[in-house]
C-alpha cells in the first residue's frame, strides 16, 4: 500500500446514492467541507439504475444526473468513488477518525476522457453488474453512459493482462501499477447513507430465480425499461422473445418471517405498478398481472397512480404466488390461491418478475468499531430518538439518511437526507459553541 494520506473535513458522507448526494449538497451549500465516499465506481446508487420513478413517471436519470453534476462540481464537496470505509471511530468530544481504502481503477482518473476505446479493445467479457447480469461487459469498462465520474476502470478480477487497452488508450492513462491507497480522515460529523440491499430471490427456491431464465427481478426489469437499457426493447432473457403475459410476484423476501424479514419494504407495490404502466406502454399487446397480498399505495399521489394502473388494464390478483414451475418452452406456471374466490389456481406466464424486497445494508454496521453502534431487530441502525430526532443514530454526531434506517421511497429518502443534513449542521454549530 502507498503512504497513508491524511485529510480533514467537516463532514463525512458515506454512500453516494441519492440520499448521500442530497446530504452532501445540503452540507456543502451551508459552507461545510464535505467528503462524499462511495464504494462503487460511480455515484447515483440504486436510483440512477431505475427507469422512471413513481408516481410522477419522470425519468430517474433525469432527476439524478443534475444532482450528481451539482455535487460533482460543488466547491465544498470532495468525492471519492471506488473507496471503502474501513472504520470510523470517535476520537474525542468533537472529532471522528475514519480510515478509508481507495481502490485502484488502474486508470488515471484525471486523464481518462471516457472515449471507450479500451472497452472496444478488451477481449475479456463478463456479466455486467450494472445491467444486473442481463448482458455482458468488458474487463476494461465504463460502468454505464451516465456514470459519474465517467472514466474507465480495469476489473482486475477478470483482466487477462493482454495489454490491448493500454495500446489503444489515446491519453495513455492505463496504469497497471496502481495499488490500493489508505487514507485517514478527521471529521466532525458523519452521515451514513449506505442505502438498502435488495433481497436475493435465489434464497426462495420455489420461485426458481437463477434456474428459470424467464424469472427475473424487478431491478432487471428496471434495466429493461430504462432509457439506457441493454436490448433497446423489452425482451425476455430466456430466448429473446417479446413477452406478452407478464406476471409480478409481490412480497418476495419481504413480509416474510421465514426469510427473517417480516417487515414491508414499502416500495415494491409502487415500483411494480409503475413498471406495469411502463410495460403497457412498451408492449401494448401484453397482459400484465400483479399478484399481491395488499397493495400499499400509501404516499402522495400513490393511490391515484394505482387506480390509473387499474384503468389502463393491469390485472391485480389478490393472492401470493406460492410456487413457480418452468415449462419446456420457457414459460412459467404460477400456483396461487385466488383469495377473492378462495380457490387454488394456476396461471401460465411467459415472463415473471419477482418484486424483491429490501433489507438493511450490512455495510453500515461494520464501520463503527467502538461498540456503540446499535441495531434494531431488523438489522437497521437504531434511530435513537425516533420522534424527536429521527436522523440520529445511537452515536452522537452520526446521522442516518435515506434507506439506511428503514425502507423508504425516493421522496421520503430526500426528506430524510434533508433531516440528516440539518441535524448534522446544527450538531457542528452547537459543538463549536461548546454546547
Amino acid at each position, binding site marked *: 500500500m502507498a503512504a497513508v494520506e491524511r485529510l480533514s473535513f467537516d463532514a463525512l458522507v458515506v454512500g453516494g446514492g441519492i440520499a448521500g448526494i442530497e446530504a452532501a449538497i445540503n452540507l456543502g451549500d451551508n459552507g461545510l467541507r464535505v467528503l462524499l465516499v462511495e464504494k462503487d465506481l460511480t455515484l447515483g446508487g440504486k436510483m440512477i439504475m431505475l427507469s422512471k420513478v413513481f408516481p410522477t413517471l419522470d425519468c430517474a436519470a433525469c432527476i439524478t444526473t443534475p444532482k450528481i453534476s451539482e455535487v460533482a462540481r460543488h466547491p465544498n464537496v470532495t468525492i471519492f468513488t471506488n473507496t471503502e470505509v474501513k472504520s470510523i471511530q470517535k476520537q474525542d468530544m468533537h472529532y471522528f477518525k475514519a480510515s478509508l481504502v481507495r481502490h485502484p481503477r488502474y486508470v488515471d482518473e484525471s486523464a481518462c476522457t471516457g472515449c471507450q476505446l479500451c472497452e472496444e479493445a478488451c477481449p475479456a467479457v463478463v456479466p455486467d453488474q450494472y445491467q444486473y447480469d442481463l448482458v455482458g461487459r468488458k474487463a476494461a469498462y465504463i460502468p454505464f453512459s451516465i456514470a459519474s465520474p465517467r472514466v474507465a476502470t480495469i476489473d482486475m478480477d477478470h483482466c487477462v493482462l493482454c495489454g490491448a487497452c493500454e495500446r489503444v488508450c489515446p491519453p495513455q492513462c492505463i496504469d497497471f501499477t496502481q495499488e490500493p491507497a489508505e487514507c485517514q480522515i478527521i471529521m466532525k460529523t458523519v452521515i451514513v447513507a449506505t442505502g438498502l440491499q435488495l433481497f436475493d430471490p435465489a434464497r426462495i427456491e420455489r420461485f426458481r430465480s437463477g434456474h428459470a431464465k424467464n424469472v427475473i427481478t424487478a431491478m432487471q426489469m428496471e434495466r429493461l425499461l430504462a432509457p439506457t437499457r441493454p436490448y433497446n426493447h423489452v425482451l425476455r432473457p430466456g430466448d429473446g422473445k417479446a413477452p406478452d403475459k407478464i406476471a409480478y410476484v409481490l412480497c418476495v423476501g419481504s413480509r416474510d418471517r421465514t426469510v427473517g424479514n417480516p417487515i414491508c419494504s414499502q416500495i415494491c407495490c409502487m415500483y411494480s405498478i409503475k413498471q406495469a404502466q411502463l410495460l403497457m406502454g412498451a408492449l401494448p399487446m401484453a397482459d400484465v398481472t400483479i399478484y399481491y397480498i395488499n397493495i400499499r399505495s400509501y404516499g402522495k*399521489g400513490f393511490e391515484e397512480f394505482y387506480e390509473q394502473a387499474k384503468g389502463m388494464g393491469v390485472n391485480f390478483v389478490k393472492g401470493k404466488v406460492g410456487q413457480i414451475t418452468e415449462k419446456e418452452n420457457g414459460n412459467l406456471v404460477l400456483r396461487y390461491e385466488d383469495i377473492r374466490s*378462495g380457490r387454488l389456481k394456476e396461471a401460465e406466464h411467459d415472463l415473471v418478475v419477482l418484486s424483491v424486497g429490501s433489507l438493511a445494508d450490512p455495510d453500515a454496521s461494520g464501520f463503527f468499531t467502538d461498540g456503540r453502534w446499535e441495531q434494531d431487530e431488523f438489522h437497521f441502525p437504531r434511530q435513537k430518538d*425516533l420522534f424527536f430526532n429521527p436522523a440520529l443514530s445511537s452515536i452522537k454526531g452520526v446521522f442516518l439518511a435515506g434507506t439506511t434506517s428503514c425502507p423508504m421511497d425516493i421522496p421520503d429518502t430526500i426528506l430524510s437526507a434533508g433531516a440528516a443534513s440539518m441535524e448534522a449542521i446544527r450538531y457542528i454549530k452547537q459543538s463549536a459553541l461548546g454546547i
Partner: protein
Amino acid sequence: MKRKIGVYICHCGGNISDYVDVEKVRQAAAKEAGVALARTMEFACADSSQKEIAQDIQEGAVDSFVVASCSPKLHLPTFQSVAERAGLNKYQYVHANIREQVSWAHSDDKEGATAKAVQFVRAAIAKVRLAKAIEPIEIQTQRAVLVVGAGVAGMKAATSLAKMGVNVYLIEKEHFVGGRVSQWDVLCITEETGKDLVTRFYIDVVANQNITLFTGAELVECSGSMGNFTVKVRITPRYVKDICEKDRMRRAIEVCPVEVVDEFNFSITKRKAIYHNFPSQYPLVAVVDMKHCTRCGKCEKECEKIDFSQEEKVVELKVGSILVAAGFDPYTPKNGEFGYQVYDNVITLPQFKRLVAISDTELKWKGRPVQTIAYIYCVGSRQLEGENKYCSRYCCLTTICAAIKAGEKFSGLSHFHFTRGIRTYGKYETFFYEASKRGQVFLQSFEDDPPQVTQKDGRTLVRIHDILTSRREVEVDADLVVLVTGMVPRTDGRIGEILKLPRGRDRFYNEIHMKLRPVETVIDGVTIAGACRGPQNVVEAINSSLSAAIKSYSFVRRDTLAIEPIVAEIDPDACTWCEACAKACPFDAIARDASTGKEIARVNTPVCKGCGMCLPVCPANAIQLRTFSDEEVQQMIGVLAHEL
C-alpha cells in the same frame, strides 16, 4: 464591437456523430457571421474539453460561445460554470440540443438529421450574437423565519433554525402548542405519548432565546418576497396573565357556569368557558374563551391573574422566509355515513383515541360498557364517490395501535377491523402482526362494496362481504363502531390564500417537485412541512420539517440572496398601464407605478419568476423577457425558417 463566437460541436462518442455529419455542421457554423472558431469534440462535457473551452475564453479567442451537444437539461449548468470559471458571464453561452432532438430523434434519416443540426447550431449562433451579460439579481435578506403552526413539525423546525442562530417567530392559532400530537396520546412505534413528546419540544422552544412564540396568533397579511417578507400577525389574548396558584385556577374553572363542547377531546366531553386542556398542556396558563364567556365574573373572584382588560393586537414582523407547518384536520364523516350521527355509538377514530385516553378502569360509551369494537377503515380516504381519492397513510397503523393499546388497558375487548387491505408499510408491519396474533380480526372488502352499518333491536350490526372468506357475508354485533377517518387539509385555509400557496389534486399544499424540491413551493422563500403537505405520520412530519428548515435556512443564512435574473422587463415609453400584465401574472409581480409621473407597470424583479405569462397579453408589446426578447426569438425563427 465584433463578436468572437466559439462553436463547439460534440460527437458524444458516436451518439451524435453516428447520425449527424458533425464536420459538415462545423463547416456550416464556421461560415456564420461572428464565429471566430468552430470545433468538434469527442465529449464536450469531458474535463479536458471543458478546459479547452475555458482556455479559448481566457486567451481572448472567444467572447461568447455555443455548445451543440445533448439536451441542455443535462449539461447547461456544466457549461455555464465553464463560462464562469473562465471569467465570462454565463448568459453569453447558448446551448443547441443536437442529440435528443436531432441525432437520436432522426437516426433513421442522416441527411435530415445533419441538416437539422446545422439549423439548430445556426439558430443558437443567432441567439448568442445578441446575448448580453446579465448579472444575477441580489436581494437583501432578513435573518428571521416565520414558522406557522406550533405542532411538532413547527416546533422542531423552529428550534432547529433557532439553534443555527436565526430569529424565529413561531405562531400558533390555538392557545396551546402541540397541535394534533398533543391529542393523540398513543403515538405507537415508541412508548412515548404525544403529551410527553410535546413537552420535550416545548421545553426546547422556551429554552431558546431566538424563538418568539405567539399563541392565539394568526397570520393575516403578507407582503414582500423571498428574503424580505413583511407579515402581520393578529394575536388574541388569553385573558389570563399568568399561572395562578394551582388550586385557585382549578377552583376558577370549577365555578365557571358555562359548559361547551370540548374540541380538544373531539366533542366527546364538555369544558368550561375558562379552561385548560389537560393539567399540563403548554403554555401552562389557562384561557378564557371569550366567544362563550358570559362575563359573570365568578372566576375573577377565585384567581387574581384573570384579566379581562387584555386586548387583541396585530404585530408586524419582518422575515426572510416563511415555513408553513399548518397541520391537518381529521375528516368529518357526513351525516349518515356509516351511521355517523344517526346511531349514537358510531364515533370517529380521534374520538376513540381520546375516549381510550380519558377512560380509566373500564371502557364505556354513553354509560354502556364496550366489549366488541368494529373499526371501519378508509372513511374519507380512497373515496369512490367523494373527492378524497388519496390514501391517508397514517390511519391503518394508528388504528391498529389504538386497538392494541385499548386491548392492553381494558380486558375482554374484541376487535374487528373492517378494512380495504391493511397498509402498515415498512417496519409498521410488525404492529399488524402483533394485533393479528393477539386475535384481533381483520376483514376486507372491495372499494365498491363498503361495509354496512345498521341497527336492529337496539343492537348495532356491521356487515361486510369479506373477500378473505370468499366474499361471504360476515356480521358483527358491535358495541362501538369506530370510523377510521383520514386526513384532510385544514378547513381553515386562510394561510394558503394569504401566501398564495398552490394546492395539489388532493388539496394539500403542493411542493415544486416531489423529489427535487419536496419542501419548497412556487412562492420563493415559502417552505412547507408536516401534514399540510399531505398525510404523514409524526416521524415523516419531523423529517419534512427538518428538510424545510434547512431550505428556509438557506434563504436567510446570508445577508443577500442571488436569484435568477431571467425576468420580464417593461419598456416605460411603450407602456400605457392597462393592467393586463398585472392580471396575467400568477405571482403578483407586476404593479402600477406612477413615480415617474407616468402611470406604467413595474416588475418587482425579486418576485418575477420569468414565466412570461405577461408577454402576449400586452397590447402595446411593451414587455420583453430577458433572453427571450423579440429580437432574439425572431432572429432564431428567421434562421430556422431559411434552411441552408
